[in-house]
């Protein structure tokens, strides 16, 4: 959603520079013709539903009867809804801890894989695999079994004298489990980091070595600034992605957000309100608050990015 303005901007700026004005008109026509299927889909499947959802968010709508206009009631009720506030808390916790940890894991593995060794292709695929299957339903089920009472995790920890019992039924542990599940799916950002690392000229490192810089110094002064556009991209995408977590939470908590509301993620609560309680207006209001919140966070990211993201060729 938040990407769509970027997309269309990219689409228009990608058009080749005109040589003559007649040529420009023909090019534009061809361009838009090729864009048409996407545009139609975008309008019918995204813009249309979004507009009607905006309307529904101001109504009391139970799926069966005609929507009843109630103004801002849904929004004001939301702010007093304890379960809503709980879902915001749970989701923020997940985003704030899960995303940086996942990116750190992705970057660390990418740096390990960046050195030239035999069988690099195999390792790359092996580390990428979890993110291919990680979002699937079956993995959430496997995860649930692994973290249950006397599951492999419980038994493994007991071997070292740590007796936590099953994580799945313990409200204090489920968040840790969900974060581990997302960290484990570091493959997608890892591949992007890896591509970014390959772009850093080797002579920078050579020069640094000559001057006696150690690995930490090289990371702080070369890798980090050179990689900052890629880090920024990954941070943004993963943050947005984390806000939208649904499937794994749904499976692990049997669609209820339990135990004791500890996996009541925002989208899960939205879903429950919409499809279990038939309160589509309320659910639509929640969806719009999420869109606005993610939009604001994206904006903040872009604003602050100027101070720490360096593009090559920048004068800074």
């Amino acid at each position, binding site marked *: 959603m938040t990407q769509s303005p970027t997309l269309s901007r990219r689409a228009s700026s990608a058009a080749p520079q005109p040589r003559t004005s007649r040529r420009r008109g023909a090019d534009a026509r061809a361009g838009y013709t090729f864009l048409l299927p996407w545009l139609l889909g975008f309008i019918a499947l*995204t813009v249309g539903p979004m507009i009607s959802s905006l309307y529904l968010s101001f109504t009391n709508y139970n799926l069966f009867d005609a929507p009843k206009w109630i103004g801002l009631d849904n929004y004001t009720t939301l702010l007093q809804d304890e379960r809503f506030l709980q879902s915001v808390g749970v989701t923020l916790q997940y985003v704030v801890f899960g995303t940086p940890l996942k990116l750190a894991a992705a970057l660390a593995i990418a740096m390990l894989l960046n050195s030239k060794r035999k069988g690099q292709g195999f390792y790359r695929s092996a580390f990428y695999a979890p993110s291919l299957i990680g979002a699937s339903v079956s993995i959430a089920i496997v995860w649930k079994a692994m973290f249950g*009472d006397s599951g492999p995790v419980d038994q493994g920890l007991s071997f070292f004298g740590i007796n936590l019992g099953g994580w799945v039924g313990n409200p204090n542990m489920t968040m840790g489990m969900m974060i581990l599940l997302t960290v484990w799916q570091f493959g997608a950002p890892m591949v992007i980091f890896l591509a970014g690392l390959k772009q850093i000229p080797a002579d920078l490192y050579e020069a640094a070595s000559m001057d006696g810089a150690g690995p930490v110094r090289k990371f702080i002064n070369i890798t980090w600034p050179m990689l900052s556009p890629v880090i920024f991209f990954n941070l943004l995408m993963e943050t947005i992605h984390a806000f939208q977590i649904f499937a794994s939470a749904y499976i692990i908590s049997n669609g209820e957000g339990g135990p*004791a509301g500890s996996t009541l993620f925002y989208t899960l609560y939205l879903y429950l309100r*919409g499809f*279990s309680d038939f309160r589509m207006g309320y659910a639509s209001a929640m*969806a719009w608050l999420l869109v606005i919140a993610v939009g604001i966070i994206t904006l903040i990211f872009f604003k602050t990015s100027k101070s720490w993201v360096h593009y090559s060729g920048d004068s800074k």
Partner: protein
Amino acid sequence: MIDRRKFLTTVALGTASAAFLSACGQSSSSGQTGSADKPVTITYTWWGNDDRAERTRKAIALFETKNPDIKVNGNFSDFAGYWQKRATEAAGGGLPDVMQWDLSYLRDYGQRNQLLDLGTVKINTDGFDKSLLPSGQIKGKTFGIPTSTNAFAVYYDPAKLASLGIAEPDGSWNYKEFNAFLAEVGQKGNGTLFGGTDYTSVWWNFNIWLRQNNIKAFTDEGKLGFSKDDLKKWWNLSADLRGTGAIVGEDKTTQLLPKSPFGSNVTATEVTWDNFMAGYLADSGAKELKLVPVPSDDPDNLGLFLKPSMLMVASAKTKYKDAAARFIDFMVNDPEVGQIFKTSRGVPASKTQRDGTTFEGTDKLVVDYEKSIEKYLKDAPEPPIVGFGTLESTFKRVSSDLNYGKLTIDGAADAWFKEAEDLIKQNA
């Protein structure tokens, strides 16, 4: 990448509006019919475990042999997911032709014109108890036909009690005695076998307790008939048991889902509907399970009643009204269907089906149990209000928070009442 990330938000927004956009035309014809060469296909959906799926498939096969002009396409899911699917389908105008239904959701869909008025099609209801049929009716229209009846009971596993050296209960007990019994099992079970689940976490159990105290759950105007203090009193009944061996912890229960602790051999007793017998036997592998009445502080008023354990309904938009009616008639009346399901749906409601079924072993226990409580039975409770399904699941959730120690009894009562009042206001 962008598509994947956008997917969820789009789905959330999109499904809501799909409902809005799809103004479905009503068909007014009496329904298409098929022939043996060109059979019509109707869809049927139900909730339940593998055991029920197996039995339902047998019943469908039998129906298709007897009615070569109709094919039945069956589909099932667990109870919680079942209602989310129906809501989505109703929004899109695509409910299955025939559905297994629960009393809790009859008003939600019936009052909103989603269900077929079965009074307009041919279904034989001669064999039904006249006091039972109204439970499927709203304002003179018949939206559901009960397949069977069930009643609340305390299950116990005699073998487990014997191994702990505990005498079998006879079911004449008050809450104090029942608590003492659970505590004894918990103590002797020593962490491997628990007394039961928290019996105060189930709405229907609360409803029975209210009836024992002559309080109505809902008023005729669709408001709550009990007070916050009543609810607090109820949750206080098992306060001393929570966190002890008498009640299995929520952390365990959560992990066993979708199986129940009783079906998983973690508890020695369970308080629930008597038609769960077949499911529990299949899940636990126990040789024998027995049923006794629920506790009551008034020995003459057990608050018990017969409820339609499930109903058969048809979609208001079905194109095959005749075929749907014939399938429903078959499912509720045919004696051979009774032989297939025995008491796994409850005790058959139709006399023709009940008389044509032989009940042996554990099935006989269920039938005998319902006979044994006959003198205590009172009228079925007030018809649940619109949105009752949500109230029921909220009751369970709040009780679960209570057992986790995340809420106090006062906090739990506040949370439930807030949700209930909000819901009643929404649907007013």
